């Protein structure tokens, strides 16, 4: 009995590993059902673009967000409206790959916090809302309150961390 159970688990895990990537059709369906007002373009299983409007907190403004997935290139998130986000003392935006492009860094790649096994609606999009909330607070305080990581400035630092 015990053995049978173990086997079941093993089989299940193997199956799960095989099907780990969520197909873009499913991603699209889920996006449509949760954000019915958003626009989605999908090119088979090779790319997907989602444009939606998020209001990160009940008292926040609305922001237009663009999510782009390209096979083997991962997923990128941009704030497309307002075109130029206000900034605290003209500082660069916090936790972005690029202030100019308003391209957000929502997760730590090394920890595999996001993988193709996850729905955008369960991960990337909630994280974008959260980024926007902390962005509004950053505009007030000049300090990022959302936590997170900054890549080490040089390799030595990384080395010392590993040790």
């Amino acid at each position, binding site marked *: 009995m015990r053995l049978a159970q173990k086997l079941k688990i093993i089989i299940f895990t193997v199956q799960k590993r095989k099907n780990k990537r969520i197909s873009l059709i499913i991603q699209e369906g889920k996006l449509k059902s*949760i*954000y*019915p*007002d958003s626009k989605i373009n999908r090119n088979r299983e090779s790319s997907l673009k989602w444009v*939606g*409007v*998020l*209001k*990160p*907190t*009940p*008292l*926040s*403004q*609305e922001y237009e967000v663009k999510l782009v997935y390209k096979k083997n290139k991962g997923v990128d998130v941009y704030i497309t409206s307002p075109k130029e986000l*206000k900034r605290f003392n003209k500082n*660069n935006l*916090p*936790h*972005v*790959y*690029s*202030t100019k492009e308003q391209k*957000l*860094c*929502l*997760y*730590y*790649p090394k*920890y595999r*916090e*996001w993988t193709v096994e996850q729905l955008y*609606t*369960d*991960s990337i*999009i*909630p*994280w*974008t*809302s*959260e*980024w926007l*909330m*902390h962005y*509004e*607070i950053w*505009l*007030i*305080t000049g*300090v*990022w*309150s*959302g*936590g*997170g*990581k*900054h*890549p080490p*400035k040089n390799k030595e630092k990384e080395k010392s961390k590993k040790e």
Partner: protein
Amino acid sequence: MLTVEQKKQFSEIFEELSNNLDISETQHNNAVKSYQAVGNWLSQEDSILAKYKPQILTQGSFLLGTVIQPINDIDDIDIDLVCELTGKNIEWTQNDLKRIVGERLKQNATYEEMLDEEGRRCWTLEYRKESEYLKEKYHMDILPSIINEGYSMILEKAFSHTDIRNVDNLAIRITDKESDNYKSDTNTDNWLKSNPFGYGKWFFNRAEISNLKLFSLNESIKPAPKYQQKKLPLQRAVQVLKRHRDIIFNGDEDKPISIIITTLSGKAYNQEENLIDAIKNIINTMHNHIEERYDSDLNKRIKYIPNPVNEEENFADKWIEYPQREKNFYLWLDKIKTDFSDILSQSQGLQFINESMQKSFGKDITTKTFSSYGERQRVNRENGNLKVSSLTGTIGAVGTKIKNHNFYGAEEKE
């Protein structure tokens, strides 16, 4: 009109504001330690007061949980204290009692140095302890008073139930330099009555809401009350109103006094659980609790704000002598109504709410408020307590749980 969710968020922001207005746990504990040391000094064996078992308790905003930080870091926090003596030497007049308490304080070199000029009813100690990490600056007003044998039992009993009758039993006798019998009368029955604990009891009765029943009552009358992080909406509302008053009037002597704001708030409060509802109701209806009564000495009608535990005491008695104080009260009330509705009209970005709140409560405290609000939201997410709703992706209590993650990102080169 605010949606339910927006009102809830405003309430959370104002709770955070009240947390930041409150004294910190360290400040609280240090203040308690300091006044307990005074109590110990008064009751030491070699003290003439020892046999009357001197005990120091808090009164006023410290007792009510409505203390706020001063506007400027350099200003003092006021802590109102009662020094209770169980009985006295039968020959002592008010003058004797006051003098003897003062003399005992002066016997201690530290307290002698801290002692301020004698007040009408109190002795005041000015604490000035400054270190690199901590600035302790507070005024301690110590009110010498006489209680009867068994008073502490009566007090404890009164604070363990909600019955508001018999608060008269909690009255104490105090000294008053301006009373006619100050230097002559040795019978405490003829001394001025004061009822700070009766008032406290009244306030907590008003503040109570069903789901937080009696939670802070018994603690508040202990000799060393613990710091209370959780507060009732009425306590928070009073803190917010007092802060607005401080910003509008700064050091103006004719500003609306705290006891008037606190009393009218307590009367107007209607057990609202949401802080925004509470503040709205209070500022819109508090004026209804200012009475008009005929004063036979002046032969005219005067404004009257009775002490809820002593009808004969008019908290607005100074308005007769200083009419500007009455004017200022109504000016302030109008101003807070306008300012509050201006804040609530901002619903297009937290940064705009911040700008509006700054005018009412000050820049530093408002920035701190949003900073602790942000911290709290981060901790909420880390603990799996943040969700986003469908359609708008709005963070709140409903929807998809936000999975834990780490914001990443290189610090860009300029």
